[in-house]
């Protein structure tokens, strides 16, 4: 098994065994979606109309939660140094960790979103649109998030600063993700253009994320 695949499997196993990733993330997602009607009132017409936006915001915030642990656990027990010293290019190692993180944190959110859509009285097509846009968009959130996680790796209690660093950079993903999902509700704007741009943003993040995060790790751990 190649080193990268081994790293990927190890990270997935750790995330599954230790918990704190998927279940807590989905729980946070559920709580956010529950909070909104308390704030806005249970008017189903309103909730249905802003449903995709609520789901996207909840998924965005839930994605942020687990990010600071992405490198912190490895930093604390020394495995991060081993990863840096190995012959595997650091950018690819970061990408492998990001994929593992998404599979164990982002993907559960995607799967949970149709269920949570029921709370917002979404029809099947908007529900599917939200899930599809989240499927494409949450990897972008994870990969952009690796940059923040890498910059904050040496800091204790880094989760808030990671959020502060990352959130402005995730705004384009949010804009196009919600826009694409909303086309299922609002109508005349076609699904294609925002969705294509969202795909483009995710692909760009696959490059910028690992490159910047690897640079941050190298410089931060010198």
């Amino acid at each position, binding site marked *: 098994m190649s080193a990268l695949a081994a790293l990927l499997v190890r990270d997935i196993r750790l995330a599954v065994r230790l918990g704190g990733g998927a279940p807590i993330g989905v729980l946070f997602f559920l709580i956010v979606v529950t909070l909104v009607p308390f704030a806005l009132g249970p008017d189903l017409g309103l909730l249905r109309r802003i449903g995709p936006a609520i789901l996207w915001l909840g998924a965005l915030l839930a994605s942020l939660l687990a990010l600071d642990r992405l490198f912190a656990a490895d930093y604390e027990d020394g495995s991060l140094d081993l990863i840096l010293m190995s012959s595997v290019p650091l950018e690819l190692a970061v990408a492998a960790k990001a994929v593992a993180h998404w599979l164990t944190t982002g993907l559960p959110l995607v799967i949970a979103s149709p269920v949570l859509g029921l709370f917002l009285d979404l029809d099947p097509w908007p529900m599917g649109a939200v899930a599809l846009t989240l499927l494409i968009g949450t990897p972008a959130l994870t990969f952009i998030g690796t*940059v923040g996680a890498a*910059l*904050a790796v*040496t*800091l204790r209690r880094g989760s808030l*600063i990671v959020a*502060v*660093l990352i*959130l*402005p*950079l995730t*705004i*384009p993903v949010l*804009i*196009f993700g919600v*826009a694409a999902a909303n086309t299922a509700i609002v109508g005349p*704007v076609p699904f294609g253009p925002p969705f294509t*741009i969202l795909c483009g*943003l995710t692909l*760009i993040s696959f490059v*910028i994320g690992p490159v*910047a995060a690897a*640079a*941050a790790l190298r*410089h*931060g751990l*010198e």
Partner: protein
Amino acid sequence: MGFADLANPSRFLSLAERALPWLVVATAAVFAIGLYQALLVAPDDYQQGATVKIMFIHVPNAWLAMLCWTVMSIAALGTLVWRHPLADVAAKAAAPLGTAFTFLCLVTGSLWGRPMWGAYWVWDGRLTSVLVLFLMYLAVLALWRTIEDPSRAARAVAILTLVGAINLPIIKFSVDWWATLHQPASVFRMGAPTIHPAILVPLLIMGVAFMLLFVTLHLAAMRNEILRRRVRTLLLMQAQAGA
């Protein structure tokens, strides 16, 4: 005296000490001319009346907000690629300045918008992009404060600055797209008024004035940062000597 000599902090300090008085005088002079032009000479816009005078502050600060991030990005390259010793100093000195100018751009934009469109903030595409830029400046400030070691902080901020620089066009495009999506009537286009020479000249003079202000403040702040690092070195030496 070549560019490499500039890298020497002591040489830089003496150069800064000599240049600063001239820069201060030049800045004050251009501001005097600019304010005279802006307040007394420039005519009222036929659509916006006298409130167009706010533009003479708002637009130069928008330019400065972008210029400052550009300066920080070039400094970031200096830190990461060439390990230029003054690059760290230049980046750290520029961050608070950029934040302040962006803040001023937002405040004046808001004050300009209120008479025109009835609300202090209308989520206009252009102004919203500046708001996101302001958030990014605050993130940079936060990172400078959070990492203790100065050179490690400089490298982390450098990476964040460059990632931000790459993202800025994407963010601008996204926010503009979002704004047109939600305001199809394009009634909220906070566009520049019809720029004709009587308004353009004061605008350009104020632009030059603000840029001179930035250069002056940046040079002075860099000088302070070099001094601050000397203090830190001395304090570390003192601690090590067990004074």
